[in-house]
């Protein structure tokens, strides 16, 4: 029987894979997409419109869920969606928390939606401060892809003219809440920018998708598709083209190679039967997310590729970066005490942010290089989590909870780690997952530069609270555990030199011309911005490059 041959096999259906699938199918390529878990049914799986009292455990989750939860997003509303079965290991001394969504659409089902473009200051950071390498492409080159992505997915913001934050094609911005105006005023006094975030949330209907109804539970998934996710935006169109087959509940095990060492397809395990299967294509796109993509390449050993496919440089899995997350300050606004509740915490969004303001004019102005951004949070939330800050009980206690309801404020830092030889992913020599696939092993710790940003951020946020007339209540004792942000980058970096980089400037592996990478693992470094919009822009560019190559072949 002749082998069934697709044009392209795409591993992963999240931001990178979803964009690749969409672009390839629209261009007429026959695509087989492999996805690690099931399809979600928005009507059943997204419980975001339920009040806590409509949940069995009031949204707190069963004891088992609370014990095993891998973070706030893995809760009673999303139970059964986040991946718990596929193990990974950590090297001694490494702490790593890792929420993986293997459902179709991946993490785009639940992402934070902040969508700032990277800037020339990010791509040329090494030239500015002498550390590590520049990106192999310029902002000018990627800017048109950002514009196209913004038009596809809908991003709300304003024009801001900041050197670290190129402006894009935006929908009307989210409105400022009370806490935003207060912090904005405080920021003006001490020179900290406080601006509308770039947020992929449809403030108006856009591209056939309904406008947001601002119900507040976006992190539990959107049941109407009013923010970008691949199951709402890309996959239906791709399926309509007739060029897409999605195989669900399958785990990519390794890339198959032909007699010349080129990619021939993918071997995968069916999670239901535990049987191994193969699927063949003229090209393979890896978009399984940073760590998983590296794991797949490292597990693809053959006589041609004894250290893993496309790894002649030895760089596959190296240069793992992440965003340091953590609460840099919390407090409350006495000026709002006793005020009636305002519908101000309801979009569960990064309505505003404090975009990088450090080292802009002078790259070595601070004790650290590069810069970080901060997201504020606060206002009338679903639960009065400040209850334990108030002493006592009884009528006064109840009144104080009510009085404080509009007042809480806190800050969350997003600080990029810098590449180091000691932060990387390899394959655990012993541990395999339940399907017999060798597990990824993570080696990671925060570098000094990132920890200096954390210290700087704590001071800046405390200063901002004081300047805004707030009471300061302290900061978290330590930053969050690495991995919390879900913004891993850098295991398959792009660069010109095949000896030093895994992929070229188009995300094509140097070693294997028909093997492409469409996720954040190609990013040479981590910036102060979130990764998704850049994954989309780079995946779009790589996919179109792939199509040209297919046509030529």
């Amino acid at each position, binding site marked *: 029987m002749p082998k069934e041959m697709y044009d392209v096999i795409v591993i992963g259906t999240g931001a990178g894979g979803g964009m690749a699938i969409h672009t390839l199918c629209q261009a007429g390529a026959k695509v087989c997409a492999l996805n690690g878990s099931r399809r979600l049914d928005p*009507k059943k799986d997204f419980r975001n419109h339920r009040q806590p009292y409509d949940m069995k455990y009031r949204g707190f989750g069963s004891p088992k869920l609370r014990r095993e939860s891998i973070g706030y997003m893995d809760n009673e509303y999303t139970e059964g969606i986040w991946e718990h079965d596929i193990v990974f290991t950590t090297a001694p001394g490494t702490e790593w928390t890792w929420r993986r969504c293997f459902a179709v659409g991946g993490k785009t089902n639940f992402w934070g939606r902040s969508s700032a473009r990277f800037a020339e200051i990010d791509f040329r950071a090494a030239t500015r401060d002498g550390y590590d390498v520049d990106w192999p492409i310029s902002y000018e080159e990627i800017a048109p892809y950002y514009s196209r992505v913004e038009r596809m997915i809908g991003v709300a913001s304003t024009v801001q003219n900041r050197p670290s934050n190129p402006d894009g094609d935006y929908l009307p911005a989210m409105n400022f809440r009370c806490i935003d105006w207060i912090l904005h005023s405080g920021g003006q006094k001490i020179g900290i920018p406080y601006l509308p975030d770039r947020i992929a949330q449809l403030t108006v209907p856009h591209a056939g998708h309904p406008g*947001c*109804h601002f119900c507040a539970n976006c992190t539990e998934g959107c049941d109407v598709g009013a923010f970008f996710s691949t199951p709402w935006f890309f996959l239906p169109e791709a399926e309509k083209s007739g060029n897409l087959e999605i195989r669900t509940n399958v785990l990519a095990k390794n890339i198959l190679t032909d007699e010349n060492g080129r990619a021939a397809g993918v071997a995968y395990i069916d999670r239901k039967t535990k049987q191994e299967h193969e699927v063949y294509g003229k090209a393979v796109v890896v978009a399984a997310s940073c760590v998983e993509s590296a794991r797949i390449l490292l597990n693809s050993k053959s006589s041609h590729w004894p250290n893993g496919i496309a790894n002649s440089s030895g760089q596959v899995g190296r240069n793992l970066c992440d965003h340091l997350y953590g609460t840099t300050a919390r407090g409350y606004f006495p000026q709002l005490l*006793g005020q009636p*509740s305002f519908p101000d915490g309801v979009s569960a969004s990064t309505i505003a942010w404090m975009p990088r303001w450090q080292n802009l004019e002078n790259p070595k102005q601070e004790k650290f290089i590069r810069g970080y951004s901060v997201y504020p949070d606060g206002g009338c939330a679903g639960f009065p989590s400040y209850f334990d800050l108030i*002493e006592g009980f009884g009528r006064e206690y109840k009144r104080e909870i009510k009085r404080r309801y509009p007042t809480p404020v806190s800050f969350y830092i997003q600080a990029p780690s810098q590449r180091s030889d000691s932060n990387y992913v390899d394959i655990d020599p012993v541990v395999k997952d339940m399907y017999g696939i060798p597990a990824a092993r993570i080696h990671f710790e925060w570098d000094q530069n990132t920890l200096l940003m954390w210290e700087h951020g704590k001071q800046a946020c405390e200063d901002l609270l004081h300047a805004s007339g707030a009471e300061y209540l302290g900061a978290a004792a330590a930053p969050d555990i690495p991995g919390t942000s879900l913004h891993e980058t850098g295991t398959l970096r792009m660069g010109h030199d095949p000896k030093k980089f895994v992929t070229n400037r188009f995300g094509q592996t140097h070693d294997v011309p028909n093997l492409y990478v469409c996720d954040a693992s190609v990013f040479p470094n981590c910036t102060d911005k979130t990764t998704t919009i850049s994954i989309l822009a780079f995946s779009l560019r790589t996919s179109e490059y792939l199509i040209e190559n297919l046509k030529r072949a």
Partner: protein
Amino acid sequence: MLARVAAVSQFPGFVRWAFGAEDANDPMKMGTVHEGQSPLSAQQKPHVYQPQFFTPTEYAMIDQLSELIIPADDTPGARDAGVSEFIDFMTASDTTLQPRFRDGLQLLDARATTKYGAVFMKLPEDKQTELLRAVAYKSTSDTEGRKFFLLVREYTVMGYYTSRIGLEQLDYPGLKLYAQSPACPHEGDPEHKHLPPPRY
């Protein structure tokens, strides 16, 4: 839908709160939505609640403690919101929680007997309040007592402010539908220095 019904039928049910209607999860089925309208249907009120973990005496004590912590005043209190049902259900489903509550209740009874010669529930409310006051504050030397107080208070707050009554008392603005992203209503006062006097 059938799966959901089956799950609910196995569930003991609560007097004061229950699962919302299936449609609560589906804005498309809600018909015309007006600004600020809650997508939820009224709560059902099933049969009398049978404690799943606590003995009747313990359960009465939990009920009384929750009401002392969040009493009914000009708005409903913990008892109205069925907080004791919530605490019993959470405790029944979590074995690590069970000794903490049971031992704590015994401890409180012991404190009551030492101080007033009778168990907690035999005392008038002002004495019960005195006993709670002795363990409620950071300044107390009764570390064990305070630990239990904080546990009961935490679960009372959890139960109360996730009930419909509690969320209405806060005037929780989420899970409603808005036509536009809600904006600060205090135009011309960015620092919020000239707000009307506190209402609460």
